[in-house]
């Protein structure tokens, strides 16, 4: 079984399970990549209102920042587009060590 078929690892299956448990959720999705981005477009990170998360949008480089934004999104319901790149090229404190750039769309589920 690969990630896409294994319900324990698949972020969208986890999201549905968490939703059924009544948790409030945000879904982060890599929508665009440039250079040597660690995760391809379409990769998901699901985050609940307590900051629990599953999946990945990078190799662990920017997840912390995405989770912080996800808390805001769960709070106000407004989707956000985040961009991460090498640290000195963007306003973000965090960056991708691999030198790539990614755009991550964060939205509330429900």
């Amino acid at each position, binding site marked *: *079984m*690969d990630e*896409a*078929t294994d319900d324990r690892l698949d972020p*969208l*299956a986890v*999201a*549905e399970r968490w*939703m059924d448990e009544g948790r409030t959720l945000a*879904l982060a*999705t890599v*929508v*665009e990549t440039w250079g040597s981005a660690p995760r*391809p*477009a*379409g990769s998901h990170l699901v985050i609940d209102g307590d900051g629990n998360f599953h999946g990945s949008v990078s190799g662990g480089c920017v997840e912390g920042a995405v989770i912080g934004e996800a808390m805001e999104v769960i709070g106000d319901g407004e*989707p956000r*587009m985040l961009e991460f790149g090498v640290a000195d090229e963007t306003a973000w404190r965090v960056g991708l060590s691999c030198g790539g750039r990614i755009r991550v*769309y964060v*939205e*509330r*589920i*429900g």
Partner: protein
Amino acid sequence: MDPYLLRKLNRERAARRAVIHLTDLGDGRDRVIREGDPVAGDLGAAVAAAFRSGRSGIVAAEGREFFLNVHLPPARIVVIGAVHISQALAVMARTAGFDVTVIDPRTAFATEERFAGVDLVADWPEDVLKARPLDAYTALVAVTHDPKIDDFPLSAALKTGCFYIGALGSRKTHARRVERLTALGHGADEIARISAPIGLDIGAANPAEIAVAILADIVRALRRRPLAGDGA
């Protein structure tokens, strides 16, 4: 994301149907599109291209920006024949990330001992494929040498449009197979899709090496499958 759409998306994926989750990045509205669903205009063309390439990404259409997340069913391999080659192939294919099912009605071959941990069905392909049909994201590998066992699944794979179809046997054996498949109503172009002799020509000299050749052939078929406009 609409909670109802999350359920629908997961349902479609579990049923091995190709779907795209489409999100308007301007207002956040989303929908799930099944392969074959009509979508008009430039967006429709982008959706069709995404189903073919399997690549997710942003497209601009109708003055708006959309994200297309493409969910194609994970590729799997159905092996007809619980033979020595299949024992090696089942292990290698799983390592490479494929789901593998081995089917053989001959209970002397299809034993748990020979295929520990492998999805193994000791039954006729006719019966197994009724319950678990082939699809475009399945590779069909027929290695029994026995027309009574191999021919039905080969014919079913041709009708279904499996992304890879391979059959073991010498050129002479295959020539007789071509005659039988022709008699079943398959055209020459269709039959030419069958990789026979099976596998890439790497001079494989034993069952494990033949399994390598077959797996490499399958990976090539998966990654280099023709896109519309390639003239293929």
